[in-house]
């Protein structure tokens, strides 16, 4: 496995064990892990305290501490940082996150460890890499996006991630009533009656 000549930060990773396993894997390949962080806030704090800034961040897309919100925060704070997402499944919501936040690569957790190193190399050389199932998930998202406004789509992506109306309102800096208003619009456009049905349009599976 060829080493990756860049500083790598690991963000999230559903528990210390997974984070340690990832760190070990990357270090074993000769790559340089500059730090592993529970979430975006921890990474921010470490950088303020003088930790080495990473060239690329490997983010766990399904970890509650990381995931799409951490990706948005990372992108806003570090526009040039390369971001590689690890995920179990490519959902339409994940496609949305990759497009909106200019994510550089997505690797499936089911892939062999060597695949992650290959993906990292592509990303560091200026190419974006997407996993198998990407095209299908993009088409599903496309179908949803075409009937929703940008704001409605943002609200739906957050609702599909399991956020409550209050949390969505805080994230988007709008009132709860506005969130409710958008949700009604979403239900109407998608022809569904509740947030679970609406979320299904943004999540994989039948």
């Amino acid at each position: 496995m060829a080493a990756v000549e860049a500083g790598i930060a690991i963000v999230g990773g559903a528990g210390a064990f997974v984070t340690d396993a990832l760190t070990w894997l990357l270090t074993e390949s000769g790559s340089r892990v500059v730090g592993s962080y529970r979430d975006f806030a921890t990474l921010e704090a470490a950088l303020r305290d003088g930790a080495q800034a990473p060239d690329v961040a490997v983010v766990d897309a399904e970890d509650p501490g990381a995931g799409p919100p951490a990706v948005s925060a990372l992108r806003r704070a570090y526009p040039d940082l390369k971001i590689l997402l690890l995920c179990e499944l490519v959902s339409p919501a994940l496609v949305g996150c990759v497009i909106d936040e200019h994510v550089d690569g997505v690797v499936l957790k089911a892939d062999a460890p060597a695949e992650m190193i290959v993906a990292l190399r592509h990303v560091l050389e200026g190419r974006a890499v997407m996993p198998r199932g990407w095209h299908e998930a993009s088409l599903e998202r496309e179908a949803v996006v075409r009937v929703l406004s940008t704001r409605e789509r943002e609200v739906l992506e957050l609702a599909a991630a399991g956020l409550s109306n209050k949390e969505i309102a805080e994230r988007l800096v709008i009132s709860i009533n506005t969130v409710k208003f958008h949700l009604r619009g979403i239900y109407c456009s998608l022809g569904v009656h509740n947030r679970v049905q609406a979320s299904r349009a943004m999540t994989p599976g039948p």
Partner: protein
Amino acid sequence: MALTLIGGQRLLREATANLLAREDGLRVLTTFESVAEYREARSELPPAVVLLDCEENNEARWQGDIGELCSPFAEGRIVVHCSEIREDLIRCAIDHGVSGVILKSYTTKQTRDAIAYIATGRTVMPAGWQRVLAGPAYKPLGLSPRQRQILALVAQGRGNEEIATELELSPNTVKFHIRELYSRLGVRNRVEAANEYAQMNRGGG
């Protein structure tokens, strides 16, 4: 990994073929002048990856080529080979679901690596490809959320009264929105509006 090259100037096409054929794990099956010639030949041994040379300034040519190659019955993974990130070309490639876009500025090794990655069923794009999706042509018409909402209902064949009840609006407000909707879509009646809506959802507009 079997590779087929289509399009571009003969000299460059054959030079690229020779260069890639020397790379580890790559085998160039054939090179074709055009998509038509490739279809005609219909080889028994389909390639894993088809590298389509798209000359940026020949828009009609690459549009036709990408469209024709990316049919549901396409054999092999289609990859666009071009010199720069030209917005309409990348957008056309994405809309047709190509498996990758490879820039001619890549080194031979980088090109080889990208092709190898694509051959495994994954997708490779130039970094920052997402930017082209933010262009004006990609925004679904200039409709407000309410108008989109009403259009969706009109397309389901619902009447003004039903739409009004559903959205808790007065029938006059619905009529007002629909008139505005017609003018923005450039249509004259509900059927044309519904067709426009179906067109949007098929990815035509």
